[in-house]
């Protein structure tokens, strides 16, 4: 049977990895390519790169990053950050990325999901969804968490599934950076409602948090600072999960 995936996430700005707390206050954590190689050697199942560089040169720098990463790692990786056109997706996949993560662009233009899935296959299209509690509702936020939308989190998850996304990368903004654990109640609702794999994101702080999230049938778990600052190694985490009955690749 398929194993559960551990995915380090690298937020990249001008080729360097940075990490924010609750989507603000950036800290530096080293070169993206070097960190990617370290995670590959340590047994990460997959990597996610989110480019938060804000510049007109962004397209070129993202393709360049993908080329450099693809030279050194032999595991799948996803790349995201401001991707809004099919020709950008083509350039990134053609440079060695396996999947693209789409966020703001699919809220603005939902048909981009079906167009990309038709052209590159569903497996290459990750719908990244950032949710935050607003009153008693889970609202979808875009533009790196800066802008609130009218969309309800659960309904948007169903919609991207219907449109042909291959996976959902679901980030809880309330949990992100807190290290208090993933948003289990909401993740559980989404897992029961959609037919595609779910990557949980936001809140990982201990090994137990990963066990909790895999026990509610989430397929993959993402974390950033926990791995970047070596508070937890991937090997140690996987050994813990295996001894608790979770199937992992060791």
């Amino acid at each position, binding site marked *: 049977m*398929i194993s559960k995936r551990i995915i380090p996430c690298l937020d990249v700005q001008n080729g360097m990895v940075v990490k924010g707390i609750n989507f603000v206050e950036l800290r530096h954590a080293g070169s993206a390519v070097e960190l990617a190689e370290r995670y590959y050697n340590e047994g990460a199942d997959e990597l996610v790169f989110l480019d938060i560089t804000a510049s007109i040169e962004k397209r070129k720098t993202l393709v360049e990053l993908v080329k450099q990463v693809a030279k050194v790692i*032999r595991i*799948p990786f996803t790349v995201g950050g401001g991707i809004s056109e099919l020709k950008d997706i083509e350039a990134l996949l053609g440079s060695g990325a*396996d999947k693209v993560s789409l966020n703001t662009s699919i809220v603005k233009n939902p048909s981009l999901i079906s167009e990309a899935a038709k052209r590159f296959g569903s*497996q290459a299209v990750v719908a990244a969804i950032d949710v935050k509690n607003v009153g008693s509702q889970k609202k979808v936020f875009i533009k790196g968490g800066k802008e609130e939308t009218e969309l309800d989190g659960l309904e948007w998850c169903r919609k991207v599934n219907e449109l042909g996304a*291959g996976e959902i990368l679901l980030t809880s903004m309330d949990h992100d950076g807190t290290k208090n654990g993933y948003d289990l109640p909401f993740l559980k609702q989404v897992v029961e409602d959609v*037919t*595609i794999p779910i990557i949980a994101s936001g809140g990982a702080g201990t090994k137990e948090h990963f066990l909790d999230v895999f026990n509610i049938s989430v397929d993959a778990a993402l974390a950033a600072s926990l791995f970047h600052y070596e508070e937890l190694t991937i090997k140690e985490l996987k050994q813990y999960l295996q001894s608790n009955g979770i199937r992992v690749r060791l």
Partner: protein
Amino acid sequence: MIALIDYGAGNTASVANVLDELNYEYIITKHESDISKADKIIFPGVGEASSAIKNLHLTNLFTMLRVTKKPMLGICLGMQLLCDKSKEGNTACLGIFPITTEKFDETKIKVPNMGWNQIKYVKQSKLFYEIPEEEYFYFANSYYVPVNENTTSICYYGIDFCSSMEKDNFYGVQFHPEKSGKMGIRLIKNFVEKC
């Protein structure tokens, strides 16, 4: 020399990176003349079956690949295109393996099948030389080839499906060796040096 086929439906960059790492000579091409000079063919594939087959016709490679006697490795969609037919877009494929590609049942299991899964050998294959059984490989597919007489390894995802097969000079793997870490690199090395 290896011909790595670029027909607009495959991720050639990742396979090329592995060939570079192994120091093999290769050419990324869609031209029959290049392929006819090569010793071996790697046929990658991602995306959708009907448009991939359309591209093979547009590049005039359809017939050549059907009749080649050179060792040829189809990867992922590349393996599925070696079958008779695909249920994806009801596509007539190359017809080397007499079987039809089916879709995973999304009422029973999450589709696509995405991630690392173990394979079990059912027949000996040079592709798996010195690769231990139950090793993990990376899969990313919504369609699968049913287990058949040419299957060399199987994988379980809701049902048993064919993770690799071979017949004469044709080899296919459903997973992505170029994205499956050290054992994936070994498999590509085995194809080049043993097949």
